[in-house]
């Protein structure tokens, strides 16, 4: 039994992070037995809501009925037989839902986002849309690594077609008060700066463009404001691309 297979319970309980959700949803398209199990476990988890049913305040009904009167419905997904396989369609649909969740997370949480000013909101929304597009890409590949000293996790979702990756960093060891985690792409010993987390920050979601011809994605600890070249070589975290 593969490791990812054992995630079916956590997945049915929504106890996975967004990246794992994407990875597992993809796994389901390739494993009919798992899809069957997950359908059953999800239905089982939904039964747990039976124990919590409470009649909501009457105003909720009025609000919801009012809002649906102003809300356009999305149409059914039309199969596009010339390109997409059923699995790919399902994958895309799941991907979009997940990406929406990631965008919510990106918009709602994280020291990185918190520090940004209102005038950055537009740029941020554009980046969120990019992140969404990478996660929903049909060729998206998910790779994970532990953070420096085995603390926290680094997840890289790469779409070769889009020439972009999304890096999700969480629970890393503190880089120090006046230090930061900086992201790099490496090729033949050359490092390209790909931005950094907020000073002292231990996690965040970053869009990394221009991955197609690169060999490695890497993270190093640098002084606040970042460095022109990595100070730590070999880097404490690296993920092989392609």
């Amino acid at each position, binding site marked *: 039994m593969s490791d990812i297979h*054992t*995630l*079916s*319970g*956590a997945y*049915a*309980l*929504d*106890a*996975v*992070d967004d990246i794992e959700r994407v990875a597992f949803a993809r796994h389901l398209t390739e494993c009919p037995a798992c899809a*069957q199990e997950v*359908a*059953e*476990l*999800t*239905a*089982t*988890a*939904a*039964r*747990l*809501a*039976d*124990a*919590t*049913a*409470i*009649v*909501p*305040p009457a105003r*909720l*009904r009025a*609000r*919801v*009925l009012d*809002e*649906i*009167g102003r*809300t*356009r*419905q*999305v*149409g*059914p*997904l039309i199969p596009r037989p010339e390109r997409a396989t059923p699995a790919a369609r399902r994958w895309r*649909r799941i991907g979009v839902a997940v990406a929406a*969740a990631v965008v*919510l*997370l990106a*918009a*709602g*949480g*994280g*020291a990185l986002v*918190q520090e940004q000013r209102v005038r950055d909101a537009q740029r941020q929304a554009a980046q969120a849309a990019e992140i969404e597009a990478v996660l929903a890409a049909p060729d998206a590949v998910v790779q994970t690594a532990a953070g420096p000293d085995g603390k926290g996790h680094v997840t890289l979702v790469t779409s070769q077609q889009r020439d972009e990756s999304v890096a999700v960093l969480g*629970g890393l060891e503190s880089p120090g008060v006046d230090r930061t985690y900086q992201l790099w792409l490496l090729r033949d010993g050359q490092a390209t700066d790909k931005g950094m987390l907020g000073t002292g920050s231990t996690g965040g979601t970053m869009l990394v463009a221009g991955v197609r011809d690169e060999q490695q994605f890497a993270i190093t600890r640098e002084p606040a404001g970042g460095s022109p070249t990595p100070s730590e070589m070999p880097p404490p975290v690296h993920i092989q691309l392609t």
Partner: protein
Amino acid sequence: MTSPRPRVGPEAVEPPGLDDLLRRVARGDEDAFAALYDRIAPRVYGLALRVIRDPAQAEEVAQEALVDVWRTAGRYDPARGSTISWVLTIAHRRAVDRVRSEQATADRTRRAAVSDVAFDEVVEEATARFEQQQVRRCLGSLTELQREAVDLAYYHGYSYREVAELLGAALPTVKTRMRDALIRLRDCLGVSFG
């Protein structure tokens, strides 16, 4: 005292007609949506309240989830689950997203408090209805550790990593525990699909 109860399958839990209503909703039928609302809103709101705890926020999230049901009704795929299961999946995910985004900004002090939350809370709230009793009985059939894992994940919105930390257990153990717990619940509740 518990008296023997008739064994009831999932079809008795989900009243007939939800599927029909949702099909009509997908075609833009607002009356059908109002009827669907009356059937699903208590479970959607109750679940949001259970996970989020703050009534004002739970109302907001319930509203978002219910409007989502309207908006995406055309994309419901019966091959992947029943109507009620689809609705509650939307609601649960919305609720979990809300608490996680709160958690991401707030200090994690809530973690410390949560390990003291007794599972009894959940059980106590399960009162009259048969479905509730059935769920309660089946939750009671889990081992203590399985029950804790399900409780922290489903009713508190914690990820399995957080559950592992709270319980001081290894990640693979927690994953396995969650899966075993749901399999046992599935068999106890007689949930079948496909």
